[in-house]
């Protein structure tokens, strides 16, 4: 099964920019530990960090398809990055998500893999 793993944190982008090298290294070590653990039981299909919310463009659900700056939802937690992982089940995915940096809210959601 495939799962989308979302990494969210309050003030994520400002915190990351102001973080010292030790903090960043710990995060990178956590990402590597997570990816290694996933590969032992499945695979990392994709993973990446995202640009700041204000770099997003949103196409609004109106007749004119207006394009606005910013994300579709202003939330306290900012989406900072995500993974797509292939693993046997959701419990395993949640268990391995514990290896990700402890500062983040980590959402693990099944993908439907619909053929369109």
């Amino acid at each position, binding site marked *: 099964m495939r799962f989308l793993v979302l990494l969210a944190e309050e003030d994520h982008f400002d915190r990351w920019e102001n973080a010292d090298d030790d903090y960043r290294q710990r995060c990178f070590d956590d990402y590597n530990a997570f990816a290694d653990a996933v590969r032992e039981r499945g695979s990392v299909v994709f993973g990446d960090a*995202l640009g700041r919310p204000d*770099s997003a463009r949103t*196409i609004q659900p109106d007749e004119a*398809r207006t*394009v606005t700056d910013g994300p579709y939802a202003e939330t306290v937690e900012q989406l900072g990055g995500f993974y797509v992982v292939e693993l046997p089940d959701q419990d395993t995915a949640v268990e391995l998500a514990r290896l990700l940096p402890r500062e983040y809210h980590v959402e693990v959601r099944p993908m*439907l893999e619909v053929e369109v």
Partner: protein
Amino acid sequence: MTEYVVLLPGDESQWENTSQADKEAMYAIHRQFAQALEERGHKVTGGSELAHSREAKVLRTDAEGNHTITDGPYAETVEQLTGFYIVQSDDFDDLLDVCKILGRGEGAIEVRAAAGGSAS
């Protein structure tokens, strides 16, 4: 090429009550979207429809390292993420233009650049 994520938020309860015929019509729009991307030099590298947000689990960790796992998404918003695409493109504006094809069926569509480092 820059990697972009195309996020598709929407009203999940409405989709759950959509007939199979109407879902097929929606998937046809997605096929048109995929075809237009290919014709205009953008490359889809990933994506999927997502399960209902009630099936999501969220892991939170406190300062002492204790984990809690809750049901549901991390953010309670009116519009939940229902699916996404990952698209490689050199033309953000044209990508936004192609995304308007999806707009006939989807609600708001967010397009955001990724940092470019795949973990795979």
